[in-house]
């Protein structure tokens, strides 16, 4: 039913384009009905760009972001990340890619319940082989205001704290591209502002690319480009 797209055609993608999306579709089949969560979507993102996506709930933003992050297979269409077809990589390659080049902040955090905040944050670094950025952890934790909570389990943290831990975990390997699914959804106004300004400063510092789904119009307005999503269709605002 779900066909895995294979790259037969070769297309040229310019160096500076980090992310290129062609005719991306995702359809959920449920019995007789099928839901087109993402419908024929085209998108190009350049290095260091900040893209925001807004849209009503259920319009398919998360689904799109998951596919861009290499977490969900599209029904059809292609995604090129730094020139490589994302869904043509082997499991091992794609996993290494996710670990080193992609950061993903989930809408529902998805922290590992058996690891403390600190262990959660450090896990991607451990997976990548340990000591890539030894002092980055302290910097991140301090900037996110998590210093006194790092030895707690996720179940002992508030929603906002969990979200910040999730953000730190996504950032720890200094990924080239960061996907954030409503990263401020659980935060009060000041923490939200702090998180966003952190993400933006890191973007400046590391030339990170940032793709963010948000409900907040003011945050969306800070982006280089803003897209709206409606019934699975992506449009430039």
């Amino acid at each position: 039913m779900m066909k895995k797209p294979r790259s037969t055609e070769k297309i040229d993608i310019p160096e500076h384009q980090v992310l290129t999306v062609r005719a991306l579709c995702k359809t959920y089949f449920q019995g007789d009905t099928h839901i087109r969560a993402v419908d024929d979507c085209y998108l190009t993102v350049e290095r260091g760009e900040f893209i925001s996506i807004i849209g009503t709930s259920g319009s398919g933003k998360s689904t799109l972001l998951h596919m861009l992050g290499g977490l969900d297979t599209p029904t059809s269409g292609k995604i090129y990340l730094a020139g490589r077809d994302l869904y043509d990589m082997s499991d091992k390659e794609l996993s290494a890619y996710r670990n080193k080049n992609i950061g993903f902040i989930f809408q529902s955090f998805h922290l590992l319940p058996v690891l403390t905040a600190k262990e959660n944050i450090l896990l991607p670094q451990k997976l990548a082989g340990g000591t890539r950025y030894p002092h980055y952890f302290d910097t991140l934790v301090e900037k996110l205001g998590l210093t006194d909570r790092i030895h707690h389990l996720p179940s002992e943290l508030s929603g906002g704290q969990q979200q910040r831990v999730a953000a730190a975990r996504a950032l720890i390997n200094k990924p080239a591209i960061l996907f954030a699914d409503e990263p401020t959804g659980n935060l009060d106004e000041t923490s939200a502002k702090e998180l966003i300004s952190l993400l933006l400063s890191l973007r400046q510092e590391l030339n990170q690319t940032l793709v963010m789904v948000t409900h907040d119009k003011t945050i969306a307005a800070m982006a280089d480009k803003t897209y709206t999503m409606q019934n699975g269709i992506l449009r430039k605002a």
Partner: protein
Amino acid sequence: MQQKVFRVSLFYALRDIRRRPVRFLSLSAIVCAALVSLTLLLLFMEAQWRADVMPDREENYHFTLDNLSEKEAAYAESLPWVQAAYRSVSPTNEDRICLRIRSDWEHCTESGELVRELIRKIGLFRREPYAAMYDTVYDGAMAKFHAYWYGATEANGLTDTRFAETQAYTHLIDHKVTNQVFMQKTVNSYVIQRDFFTLILMFCAFTAAAFTILIENDYRRSFEDFGCLRALGFTNGHLLCIHLIRSFFIYISALPGTFLVSAGFLALFRRMTAASITEETAYLMDVTAHLPIPLMLILFSLMLGAVLLGTGAVCFLHRREEIMSLLRGVQRMQISFVAETSEAFAESDSIREYGRLYLRRSRRSMLYTVIVTSLVMPLPFHLFSSLIELLPAAGTQEVYPVFLYTLLQTLAVFITTLCITVTAARSAVSMRARELGILRSLGADRDCIRTLIYPAAWIQSLHITICSLFMIIWTHIVSRNHFDFDVKAEAGSGARLINTLLSDIFGSALFVIPATFLGTVLFLRYFFRTPILTSMNDKE
């Protein structure tokens, strides 16, 4: 590279073990119970084996003499080279007197005179069964010799002493041989050595299968975590490594318990049989038991292999699972389901309706529980039926130790099965912890939760009973050809079949239903004690 994979997997596996002790320990308890059963099986087998080889190895020669009167037996026992006379009980209930004579053949020839005397006194060869036996066992030449020997002794004493002594020895050896056959019949008719290995392998296979399915159950409960790990860049290889490490630790942590419990069982057994092991029967059951260490090591590694293989199989089955569907997890599916139906909570009828809906949706996980439990069920019942067969002769000196062994063995296997059944039932409900937590938060009270859970438990245990019954009957049919348990089996096999069938039905129902409910009740107790929020976070 390999080392890196191992290190990060070890890190995660250890955290998982430490922070989810309930899951870890319940799996470990199952492995422990299985290993205890295995040890006892081995011990039993070893004892059986020793009983078989002892007469040979320790050169204890045994005579079996039919139709001796008590007086004749007493006389025989008073002879200096006869160490003991004992009455043996055979399954055919023939009354036989056995004589144990001095341990080496030197003695036998030395006391050739006495042998002859005994034989003359008792008039062995005039007895009907012996005459017939010698006709068939010995060839014509032997028969001729017998005639000569018999004649010689009767008429004018022995003319050729050496020749006669050699023949007396031959006679003894032959008795030893027939005697050996007889021994096997008394002790071993219940559990036949060769098939014992089949039993052990069957046991290993069943436990491995059960463990695999429990691991699978466990894996499903952690779908979300594995999705998360995959999203962070863990490969399937990493997940496999994590699971293998975890299973290895489960196995290792079961070992101390195994040794303790086995030692306890052994001590108990020794204590219970000490009184019954007299000078005469000690050779039958040498329980100052040497556990066969190399065999034990082999079987223990076999079990470890089975456990790891099962774990690997589970990971292999799930290797193609999409990250997003893992992340959504079993729980999430339940939650959306709760959300769909949450309006319908006010009346208890709608709760039942909800319960039915849930059952329909969770058919698969129930199927797993049913399979696990019915897979392990035949073994205890198999042992149980041999226990029943031993029961009539349980009081006698020779069968008593065998009976005790079988009793303990059956007990151990029943406990293993109980562990598996209870754990399977418990983990089947605890999959629902989060859903039930949400229901509680929506205002469902304890009675409401019980109305939801108990019918499901009933349905599940009925399914298990029926499946187990089929399994048990199937093993009965299969083992009929392999296990020749009872000499009397031919007689009245129709009535016996019905008896077996009825006891299987009652036995499996009596065993399965309380065990399933015990698992369910254990979970509910735990669930009602934990705060609603903790259940909603599924922290077990």
